Structures are given as structure tokens and as C-alpha cells.
């Protein structure tokens, strides 16, 4: 019971915070976006205050969450967004409306619900069992509360390759008396499905169409499987996808709240995994489009938000490991190293690796994406800036996958032994391409 209250408190904080930033979201959207933002910001704050001397423990963590809720309520009242806080969830009305849905819609909703229920069922029963989770993510969650600080983990060596979002989320469940934090991943899965659906309905205006693509996302084996694994790949993919999507929606709806949410999500993707630099591509895309629109201030604020979320972990990591992961240094050294190491032999080996582990495994979606690109000239003619923005972001990220693999091929001797990891790393391609294809088909195929 305390676990349920603890998770509801995170959702409440997220709900209030989302309502403050973008009150136009529907209730369900506020809940799901609220869960994602809530768990991300709460764990980040826990980490930051821990560095400042406040231990990981049930009392300090509860007080921090309570403070976050109070601050969010205050923000809503100060900025007068509290009038949107009404929680109009009329179940009777919803059920009546559901009954009126067509057979196809009921079939799609039932299929999505079947998948989500099974994800919860599996996670409520099965504990954390995967190798990486035991060695790293869940282990950190178990030893942090013993001393309240991270020194023990640091002394044991290899713990700081990956940020702490999922570990601290597990820890919160353990602190609340829970024994199994796996349900958090079902909540991530459900949040992805609901965010995807609502983000799509904002553009396609056809419930059937949006549900159809949402089912395609929910049934994806890689996504579903990861909803039953305590790995960081699913949360990371969700934050990256939502970061890109809300950036696109900002272009479409011109509401700064959406851009703000996009920036937070991109920042939280770094708080989940630092190994992949895809966030740079998203930030670069947004900055370019903001500068085209001559929005200099926003072009400054967006990366500042991302870096503000990124910095605590990066600085802490630099102190612990002695490695400086500054953006400028990473970018300049990468560009310099690529220009020094171009040769056809490596290109062919990398090409073969990309084909085996990424392209062939995502082949269907990549083919669909290629077909969708035939509508690109229409987008340009129509000056559909929002879809061009999305296309540009996807191209930059795909380019980073290729370039990043190339850099790894000569900078890491074991680069080609982690094929499955490369596949997992590109999991975000699934929601991203499905979303893109749905938009393109809806906007251009029938016009």
C-alpha cells in the first residue's frame, strides 16, 4: 500500500508540474507525462541533494517529494494555472463513450489493453532477474540506503558508467517497503503508449488511425520485452522519443510549454543513459529551427535546460572517475578522430556491423521510413516546417548512429562484441518511425 502511495505521489508531483508548464494536456496525458517527468525529476533531485549531504532514506526522500509537490502547487497558484487542475475523470462518461466506439476501435483498444495488462502481470510476479540489472542498476538501489550515501558503491569500483534514474527509482520502491520494482517498467511502457497516442491525435485527428499506430507500437516485441526487463533502454528510448515529439509539436502548435517539456525530456534521457550522444542531435535541430525563426532567447534557453539536467551527473562523474565528459571536448575530439581515421576497410566493416545488428533488425521500419520520405518534396513545397523539423531530427540521429559506430570501431577494441547492445540502443527508432509514418500518411498520402 505504501508503495502505491509513494508512486501516486510521484505522479501527483508530475501532474502538477505538467499542469504548470502546459495546462492544455488532457487529464490522462497529464498523468502519463506526469509519471515520466515526476520520476525523472524526483530521482535527479534525490541525487543532487545527496551530493549536498542529505542521505538516501525514507524520511528525507519523502520530505523532498512533499516539497516538490508543494512547490508545484505554489507554481500553479502563482502563475494561475490552478484553474486547469480540475480532475475531471468521469468514469461513467468514459465507459458510455467506449461503448459507442466502433468494433475496430474496440478491437484495437482491447488488444493494447491485453498487452499492457500482461506486462503488469509479468512484472508484478517476476522479480529483477536480468544480468545487467543485478550487477548494476538494482544492486546500486539496494546498497545506497545502507549507508545513505554513494561512497560504498564508489569504493566497489565500476558503478558509475551509467546514471542513476532507474537505480534511484528502484531504491524508492525498496525504501517504501516494496520488494519488487519491476512494475515501474510497465508504467514506463504504458506511459509510452498513452503519450504516443495523444501526441498522434494532436496531429492526425482520427482516433482509429491513431489507435492503429499505437497498437503497432505496443505490439513491438523489443519494446514489450523491455517493459519486462529492468534495463535503462526502454526509459531512455521513451525520454528520447518524447523529447523529439514534443519538439515537433511545439513547431506545430507554437506553444512554448511544449518546447520546455521537450527540453526536460531530452535532459532526462541523459539522466537515464550517458553513453549515447543522441541528445546533441535533438538540441542541435531545435536550435537551428529556433535561429531560423530568429528566436534567439529560446535558442539559448532550450540547451540551458538540457545542460542543467545533464550537468550534476556529468560533474559528479568527472570528480569520481577523473574523466571530463565536456560537450565541446567530446565533439571536437570525435570530429578530429574521424577525419584522421577514414579508410575504406573500416567503412566496410562498420557497414557490415550496422547492417547485421541495426539495419537488418529494423529493416521493415526503415523501409517504411524510406517510402515515407518520397513525400518529402511535398512537405518542402507546402513549407510544412514541423514535419521538416522532425525529418531533420531523425536524419541527424541516424547520422549519429553511423558516425558513433564508426568512432567506436577504432576507439574501442571490443566494439563489435556488443551487437545486441547496439540493437537495444536504437530501440527509440520504433516509436519514432511509427510516429513519423503516421503523420506523413495522414498529412500527405490522401491529399
Amino acid at each position, binding site marked *: 500500500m505504501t508503495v502505491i502511495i509513494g508512486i501516486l505521489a510521484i505522479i501527483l508531483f508530475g501532474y502538477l508540474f505538467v499542469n504548470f508548464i502546459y495546462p492544455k494536456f488532457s487529464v490522462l496525458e497529464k498523468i502519463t507525462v506526469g509519471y515520466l517527468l515526476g520520476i525523472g525529476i524526483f530521482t535527479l533531485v534525490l541525487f543532487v541533494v545527496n551530493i549536498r549531504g542529505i542521505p538516501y532514506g525514507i524520511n528525507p526522500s519523502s520530505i523532498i517529494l512533499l516539497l516538490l509537490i508543494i512547490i508545484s502547487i505554489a507554481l500553479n497558484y502563482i502563475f494561475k494555472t490552478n484553474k486547469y487542475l480540475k480532475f475531471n475523470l468521469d468514469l461513467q462518461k468514459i465507459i458510455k463513450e467506449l461503448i459507442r466506439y466502433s468494433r*475496430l476501435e474496440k478491437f484495437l483498444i482491447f488488444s493494447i489493453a491485453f498487452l499492457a495488462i500482461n506486462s503488469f502481470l509479468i512484472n508484478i510476479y517476476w522479480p529483477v532477474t536480468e544480468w545487467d540489472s543485478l550487477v548494476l542498476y538494482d544492486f546500486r538501489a*539496494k*546498497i545506497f540506503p545502507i549507508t545513505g550515501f554513494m561512497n560504498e558503491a564508489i569504493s566497489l569500483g565500476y558503478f558509475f558508467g551509467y546514471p542513476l534514474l532507474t537505480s534511484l527509482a528502484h531504491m524508492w520502491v525498496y525504501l517504501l517497503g516494496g520488494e519488487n520494482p519491476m512494475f515501474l517498467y510497465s508504467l514506463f511502457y504504458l506511459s509510452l503508449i498513452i503519450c504516443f497516442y495523444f501526441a498522434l491525435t494532436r496531429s492526425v485527428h482520427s482516433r482509429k488511425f491513431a489507435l492503429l499506430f499505437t497498437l503497432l507500437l505496443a*505490439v*513491438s516485441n523489443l519494446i514489450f520485452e523491455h517493459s519486462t526487463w529492468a534495463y535503462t533502454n526502454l526509459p531512455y528510448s521513451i525520454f528520447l522519443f518524447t523529447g523529439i515529439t514534443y519538439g515537433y509539436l511545439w513547431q506545430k502548435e507554437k506553444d512554448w510549454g511544449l518546447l520546455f517539456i521537450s527540453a526536460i525530456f531530452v535532459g532526462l534521457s541523459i539522466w537515464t543513459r550517458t553513453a549515447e550522444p543522441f541528445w546533441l542531435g535533438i538540441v542541435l535541430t531545435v536550435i537551428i529551427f529556433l535561429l531560423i525563426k530568429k528566436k534567439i532567447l529560446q535558442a539559448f534557453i532550450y540547451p540551458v535546460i538540457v545542460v542543467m539536467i545533464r550537468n550534476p551527473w556529468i560533474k559528479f562523474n568527472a570528480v569520481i572517475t577523473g574523466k571530463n565528459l565536456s560537450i565541446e571536448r567530446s565533439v571536437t575530439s570525435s570530429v578530429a578522430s574521424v577525419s584522421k581515421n577514414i579508410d575504406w576497410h573500416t567503412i566496410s566493416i562498420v557497414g557490415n556491423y550496422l547492417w547485421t545488428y541495426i539495419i537488418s533488425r529494423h529493416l521493415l*521500419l526503415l523501409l517504411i521510413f524510406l517510402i515515407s520520405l518520397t513525400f518529402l518534396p511535398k512537405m518542402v513545397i507546402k513549407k510544412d516546417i514541423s514535419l521538416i523539423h522532425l525529418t531533420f531530427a531523425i536524419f541527424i540521429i541516424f547520422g549519429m548512429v553511423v558516425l558513433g559506430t564508426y568512432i567506436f570501431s577504432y576507439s574501442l577494441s571490443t566494439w563489435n562484441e556488443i551487437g545486441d547492445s547496439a540493437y537495444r540502443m536504437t530501440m527509440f527508432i520504433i516509436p519514432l518511425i511509427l510516429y513519423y509514418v503516421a503523420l506523413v500518411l495522414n498529412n500527405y498520402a490522401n491529399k
Partner: protein
Amino acid sequence: MHGKLKFYQLIIALLFVPLLPLLAETFIYSGFFKNFFNADISYIIYIGILAGTYYLFFNKDKHEPLIDLLINLLILLLFVTTVAVFILGYLEEVNFPNYVFSVFHVHYHNIPALVSYVFYLLFLLLIKNETKTLLIEKKLSLKLTSAVFFLLSVYLVNNSNQTLSLIERKVITILVKPNITYNEKMSKEWGFFYNYMLFVRENTPSDAIVHLPPKLDPWQLTGNIGLVRYFLYPRQLVNTSDPFSLSNKKFDYLLISKGFFTQAGESGHGWPKIPIEADKIWYIDENTKEVEEFNGQFIPHTSKDWGLIKLVNN
């Protein structure tokens, strides 16, 4: 009109044809289609999906008096086959491996493929039945959109098959053993390795320093300090990279570990490889999990596969 009707009938037939080999793979034997046609069963499924795409996008005839009946039949078939996956999986789990085949002559592992195709058929007919505006008049757009729909349908069938198989694997245990403990679940996932970790945990104090085998081929599990630490924390762990020597660091217990990996590498299975003066030795049987206690020296190759040594100087 007659020719058109025939073509329409051919498309409908092609749409339903994959059900036959899928049923044959379930009720006759796995690999039935490959045996007769020397091709993977997925090809006939793709042909069915191609027919479905044509039916949805290019067929403007309205010979669909039976579509409602077909939809109802498919709903029933989808329900029956999905329930069958779980019931047969349950029966297999509570009895013995291959029980379902030996009693019912059903390859129940092939049913998810059948379910996924029925799911696709139902999905297609519902779209056809409800979406009147799908036909796109511009030729290029129509071809491109139908190509996308074809690929998305293949994606749907492939993924629903894999996901249902995954759900079946995980959920069957829940149905068969809803009340098992955390240790039993971990044992089911990790096998004897987890029982062995529990055994070491039970026989060592929390401040013990335990010597593990090296992290080489046969001992990738028991020699992996990061992994073993999850189960034995707060005990301290040490090991070396040489299977024939021990660490210079202080330690008071050693694992006796045959190794799980079939690849033995140069050093072969079984560790420690040198005699150890022991205060006490516990052996655990891999099959029965029974523990035996001995006093005296540990001699490699003459002892049992799995156990724990308490050093004499403790």
C-alpha cells in the same frame, strides 16, 4: 463481371490460404510447409498479407455479404486459439515436457503464429468493413500507401507472434505457480547458480572474505565478482586471473566450483585446482541440493563438483 468475380475470389482465397499450413504446422508436424514446398512458412504468410493489401486498397467490388459473419468467426477463432496457447502451455508445465504433443498431438509452440495471422485477418477485415475512405484516387499515393500498409502488416504479424510467445512463456509460470517465493522464482530463472549462491550465503558470515574462481570460460558466472556480489553482499570477494594460484589478499572461504559453461578453456572444469588445507568443507549436490559437511583437506579432482571451503586458519 464474371472474370472480376473470379479474381476477387482468388484474392480472398489467397488471404485465407496461410491458415492451412499454419494449422498443419500446429496439428501435423513442425516444418510441414518446408518439407513439402522447400520454403519457409513466412513466404506463404507474406503472400496472404499481399492479398490482404490488394483486397483493402485496390478492390472496389462490393461482394462482401459475408464479411460480418467472417469477422464474428475470426473473433471466435482468435479467442479460442489465444486461450488454447495458455491452456496447453499450462498442461505442459504441470505435467512434463512434450506432454501436450504426446496426448493431443498438438505443437502448441506453433499456435502463436496461427494466432498472429488470425489477428491480422481480423484487423484487416475490420478496417475494410469500417473505413470507407481508405481508397485513394491518386495513383502514386495509393501505391506508396499500400506498400507501407503491406510492410506494417508484416511488422504486425511478426511482432504479435514473438510478443505472444514471450507472454506465453512468462505467464504460464504465473498460472502454474502463482504463490512461489522470491527464491523459487530466482532459481527458476538462474537455475542451480542461484541455489549455489544461497548455499554460500547460508554457510558464510556476513563479514567473510570469499575467494572466487577466475573469470575464465567455465566460471563466467561464479568468477564474476560483479554478479556474485549481488547475491553475497556484504561479503567481500577476491579472485585472480590464474586458475592455478590463489590471491595474495586475505580471505577465509573458497568456492568449489565446477563451472557452468560447457566451454572449459585451457584450464578445464573444476576449481580450486590445487590442494587446500581446510577447516571444514561443505558440498552441495547439483540435483538434490543436499548439503554434506566434511573435515580435512580439499584435493582437486577427487572431490565433488560444488561446495565451499572454510580455510584452516580461521
